[in-house]
């Protein structure tokens, strides 16, 4: 089995992600088409005065329908979620409901960057220190993972050589790496970065490798006929072709890094959103636990969105 084969999961993820983006474009296309048909209808109206023209929808109507089609389901979903949450919090009084959480959040976000002591910082600081850790761990992973992916993808020997090791290490739970980090690095901070590094490196290695191994033979034939130098092949053919694959890897890696950070900080202490979550649990501020969950979710969503926007800029087809 080659390293490329291991990638089935991340490829599947990648496909589903692409589907999501495709759907959004289809939506906008449909919207554009609706506008077009409407223009045609308007034309036929002025030209022929057909009797059934009265049935034609106006632009305003079409826009309203499109608006409700796209807005109603998510709003409905959120309302349902809040309803279920309220119901559960009534059954389990220890669990804060939406209203008390909302009030608590308003209070909390009134001063996001206050700083009384290392253990009593604003939520803004906690988010920033988590992001910093993720950035460091992920940055190191990219620095190592992307070139490694290029080498594995370019040479079959390397692919076969690394396949068993990658296959073995990739499914290991992120937190299993923490004791090793503590043992070698002898400090909690670097150990957390180590955990992020080792668990977020794989999607970048594997996706880059898959991209490199998939460069179409047609392009390589062009390179051969033009007699391009190895440097030109990399800069003009391999790298541009691999970029979208690489960006998918980067996106998956950031997602994993953000997943891991909460757990790592819970175990490690210090500042950070994960640490804060655990600290608030110990202090019996249960509203804050729920706020922390929302914050983690929203920041993760934002990271994902930003990377999707960046990735789409490299799509040439």
């Amino acid at each position, binding site marked *: 089995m080659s390293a490329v084969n291991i990638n089935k999961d991340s490829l599947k993820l990648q496909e589903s992600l692409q589907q999501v983006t495709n759907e959004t474009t289809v939506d906008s296309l449909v919207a554009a088409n609706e506008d077009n048909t409407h223009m045609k209808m308007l034309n036929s109206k002025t030209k022929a005065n057909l009797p059934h023209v009265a049935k034609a929808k106006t632009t305003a109507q079409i826009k309203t329908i499109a608006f409700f089609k796209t807005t109603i389901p998510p709003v409905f979903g959120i309302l349902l979620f809040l309803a279920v949450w309220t119901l559960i919090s009534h059954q389990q009084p220890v669990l804060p409901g939406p209203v008390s959480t909302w009030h608590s959040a308003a209070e909390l976000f009134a001063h996001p960057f206050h700083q009384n002591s290392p253990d009593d910082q604003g939520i803004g600081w906690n988010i920033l220190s988590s992001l910093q850790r993720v950035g460091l761990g992920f940055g190191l992973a990219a620095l190592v993972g992307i070139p490694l992916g290029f080498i594995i993808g370019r040479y079959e020997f390397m692919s076969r050589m690394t396949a068993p090791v990658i296959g073995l290490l990739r499914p290991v739970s992120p937190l299993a790496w923490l004791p090793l980090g503590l043992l070698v690095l002898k400090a909690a901070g670097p150990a957390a970065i180590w955990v992020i590094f080792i668990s977020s490196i794989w999607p970048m290695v594997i996706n880059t490798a898959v991209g490199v191994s998939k460069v179409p033979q047609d*392009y390589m034939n062009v390179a*051969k006929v*033009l*007699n391009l130098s190895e440097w030109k092949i990399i800069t*003009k053919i391999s790298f541009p072709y691999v970029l979208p694959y690489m960006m998918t890897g980067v996106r998956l890696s950031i997602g994993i890094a953000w997943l891991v950070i909460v757990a790592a900080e819970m175990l490690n202490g210090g500042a950070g959103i994960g640490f804060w979550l655990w600290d608030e649990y110990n202090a019996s501020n249960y509203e804050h636990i729920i706020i922390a969950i929302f914050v983690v979710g929203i920041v993760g969503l934002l990271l994902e969105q930003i990377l999707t926007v960046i990735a789409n800029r490299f799509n*040439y*087809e």
Partner: protein
Amino acid sequence: MSKISNENISIKKLGKATNKITERYVHIEDVGMRFVTKKGEFEALKNINLSITQGEFVSIIGHSGCGKSTVLNLIAGLLQPTSGNLFCAGREISAPGPERAVVFQNHSLLPWLSCFENVFLAVERVFGSESKVQQEARTYAALDLVGLSHAIEKRPNEISGGMKQRVGIARALAMEPKVLLLDEPFGALDALTRAGLQDELMKIMQKSGTTAVMVTHDVDEAVLLSDRIVMMTNGPSATIGEILDVQLPYPRKRLELAEDKQYNHLRSELLKFLYERHAKKAA
């Protein structure tokens, strides 16, 4: 129909050329090609012998799977023959190179580069010793030749299939190749676009006098563009069946030829070869 042996090539465009190298500008000598597949060895080509004169336009026609693209890839140097030898301008063909430029069927333009950059990539490689201004001028000239001056900054996905193929042709011609190799260049285009591009290619080839080898399965295209048409038998172990000499005068006009006796005779010779003597069983 007259079979024309390799030693007895009629030289039309360069009537006076008698030099061995210009007569055998592209020379294929007893070439065979075997592929190793999962099911065992497969002999794609055997005993291919062909000499192409400088300035000549030769088409290779045959049913799909007869190995005609393999012949082209052998001349391009993208494949190495398992037996026999190939020569271009007196030198053995051992690797691909810009002196044998290829126009690929699916255009093979790099989607992240503009039309200009796609052609420039080739110019830069072949004319690296010239100044940047000269290289750019060559790129503009090549794109102008195929009538694409207005779309040079567009990316391949922003232009039509016919325009993409024009860029492919411009890229190949910009290298000023000794031999232009066309692999079913218009196969993926609709009939009207195809006819337009055939006419333009004919003009360009007349102007430049470049030697060309084209793989096609379009009978009209072959007769219209070629000086000689090589008809291949069906694979496996495909080889050259017959060679048809096309002595229609240039410039050739599509509409006039439609009623031309000689044209229609050549056309029916091709059809007889393809559908009577070497008919392919329906798959």
